[in-house]
């Protein structure tokens, strides 16, 4: 027995990851009257993708316009996320929940309206009409944190979950450690909702710093890896997502720029997007990235965000809303010398990440209409699931996941037992890097993973490049035994690095099985450059079998013609 301080906790529904989806799950589970525990690696007041704020909420509002209906919206999802969005799941986890999600947002004290009381909507990303509600979501995360506390949810901040544990093939609980004190947690739960976001830090970033990223660098696929090891099926894992960001700073702003009417131009000052998509600068994100990559590749770079035609009032609003999504972006742009007037901002293509290929689906745990995975007791929500992504689905679908998990927990009579031997082995594994006098740092290890992933599938890939990546990444498993951490912060980063490494392998294996290209360049197979709807319009599902063997299967998805 170690002399490390350990805690045993029992609950009905545990939420792993207290971002937008997780906190909405917690609200729903609490409303259903079960005991709720939220576990987050950071602090739920500011954690996850919207830790610093958010400025857009996608919604149809049934205002009478032909594009503003549930049917038109689902038609849009089917067109833009074809082959990745499961419309039956989408209908259940988003459309059925949307009205309540909008009301909940305002009820907790975050207005979706402008200061003059009107709803301001913008159009981008292939939308048939202005689906994005532009709002000031700076306080959304702190307000949600207040709400879950008001609903008496128990919160464990600064605890990194290390593994899920099953009993007879069903969820029994999970383990984790406090990233400051090193205290060990053994938690039993009837159900869990996994809401830990996507996987970052897997590919080289624009100025070499793996924390200068579009999405939250603390989201490192921790529970994608743990769920996969527990036999949970994952889908949409082959996609490598990118966006357009300011040169030097991988910050969000895409919706704000294009929603306000800015356009991409090349170094000849030519607007180029209509060459790549009929909707030009209002095209889905992957086409924007594809267009930018072609301009750069063909020597017409750098590329710029042309805001010169915007009126002063529009520019004022643009810079304001850029700061809602990323607090420090407006001052960065000003520090680079961009005045609001006559603004032509140099942009580039962001770092790749392992994430959903569209705002209209997710990448991760394969969920059904009840947000359930294939393992009894394990549910998923938000970016960590294969069918939810972006704020609108995290708010709406997160709540659905919590409600379904609570209903499941109510049907379970007893908590399942944790196996003491497995827990002891896990505790030894978790803390092993701390005891080492010499060894490899997480920085060195993670950098090796990034080089392999970037060179072999970041984002262009072939069968040879993917097999090469898998060979290198598999050989790198042996290095886990040499990883060294000198303090708890480094121990957290070391586990993150190992998780990124394992998710990279899952992503490469799924990409190998998808012998076509889809969402160019997010899954671009140079050896199969065309989209093949006849054979690949659906989900590549990847799962570790009980014997440890990894298998893929294809779930076909159908869409109206």
């Amino acid at each position, binding site marked *: 027995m170690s002399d490390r301080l350990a805690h045993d906790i029992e609950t009905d529904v545990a939420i792993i990851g207290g971002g937008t989806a997780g906190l909405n799950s917690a609200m729903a589970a609490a409303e259903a009257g079960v005991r709720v525990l939220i576990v987050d690696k950071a602090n739920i007041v500011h954690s996850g993708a919207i*830790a610093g704020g958010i400025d857009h909420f996608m919604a149809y509002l049934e205002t009478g316009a032909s594009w503003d209906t549930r049917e038109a919206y689902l038609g849009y999802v089917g067109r833009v996320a074809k082959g990745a969005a499961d419309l039956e799941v989408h209908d259940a986890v988003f459309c059925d929940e949307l009205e309540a999600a909008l009301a909940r947002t305002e009820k907790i004290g975050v207005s979706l309206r402008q200061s003059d009381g009107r709803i301001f909507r913008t159009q981008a990303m292939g939308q048939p009409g202005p689906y994005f509600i532009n709002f000031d979501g700076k306080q959304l995360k702190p307000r949600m944190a207040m709400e879950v506390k008001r609903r008496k949810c128990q919160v464990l901040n600064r605890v990194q979950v290390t593994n899920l544990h099953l009993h007879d093939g069903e969820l029994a609980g999970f383990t984790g450690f406090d990233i400051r004190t090193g205290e060990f947690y053994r938690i039993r739960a009837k159900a869990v909702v996994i809401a830990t976001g996507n996987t970052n830090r897997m590919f080289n970033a624009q100025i*070499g710093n793996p*924390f*200068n990223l579009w999405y939250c660098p603390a989201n490192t696929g921790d529970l994608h890896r743990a769920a996969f090891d527990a036999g949970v099926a994952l889908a949409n894992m082959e996609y490598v997502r990118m966006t357009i960001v300011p040169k*030097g700073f991988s910050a969000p702003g895409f919706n704000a720029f294009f929603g306000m009417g800015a356009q991409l131009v090349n170094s000849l000052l030519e607007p180029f997007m209509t060459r790549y998509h009929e909707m030009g600068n209002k095209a889905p994100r992957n086409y924007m990235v594809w267009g930018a990559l072609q301009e750069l590749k063909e020597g017409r770079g750098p590329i710029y965000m042309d805001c010169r035609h915007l009126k002063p009032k529009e520019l004022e609003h643009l810079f304001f809303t850029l700061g809602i999504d990323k607090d*420090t972006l407006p001052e960065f742009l000003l520090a680079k010398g961009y005045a609001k007037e006559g603004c032509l901002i140099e942009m580039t293509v962001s770092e790749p990440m392992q994430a959903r290929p569209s705002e209209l689906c997710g990448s991760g745990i394969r969920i059904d209409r009840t947000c359930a995975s294939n393992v009894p007791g394990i549910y998923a929500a938000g970016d960590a699931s294969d069918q939810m992504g972006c704020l609108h689905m995290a708010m709406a679908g997160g709540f659905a996941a919590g409600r379904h998990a609570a209903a499941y927990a109510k049907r379970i009579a007893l908590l399942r037992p944790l196996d003491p031997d497995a827990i002891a082995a896990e505790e030894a594994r978790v803390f092993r890097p701390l005891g080492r006098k010499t060894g490899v740092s997480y920085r060195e290890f993670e950098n090796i993973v990034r080089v392999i992933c970037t060179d072999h599938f970041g984002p262009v890939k072939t069968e040879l490049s993917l097999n090469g990546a898998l060979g290198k990444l598999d050989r790198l498993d042996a290095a886990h035994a040499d990883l060294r951490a000198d303090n708890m912060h480094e121990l957290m980063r070391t586990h993150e690095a190992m998780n990124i490494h394992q998710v990279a392998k899952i992503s490469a294996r799924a990409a190998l099985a998808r012998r076509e290209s889809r969402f160019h360049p997010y899954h671009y197979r140079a050896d199969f450059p065309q989209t093949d709807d006849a054979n690949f319009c659906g989900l590549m599902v990847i799962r570790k079998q009980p014997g440890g063997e990894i298998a893929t299967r294809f779930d076909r998805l159908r869409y109206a013609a």
Partner: protein
Amino acid sequence: MPAVIDPAKCNGCELCDLYCPVDVIHMEGKVAVVRYPDECWHCGACRLECARDAVRFEFPLAMLSV
């Protein structure tokens, strides 16, 4: 240095340390210190929570120069 904390203004309230989503700010005695500046996400959560206006951002040379 990205987030920079002015020790003269810091009152040791610990909110920036508590709320940094990437664990880069740690208390050292009664003052908050940006211990892992190269792991800062520039989200601004620390500055949003600081009641003493003790946090400012200095963008690294590479971010401003490329």
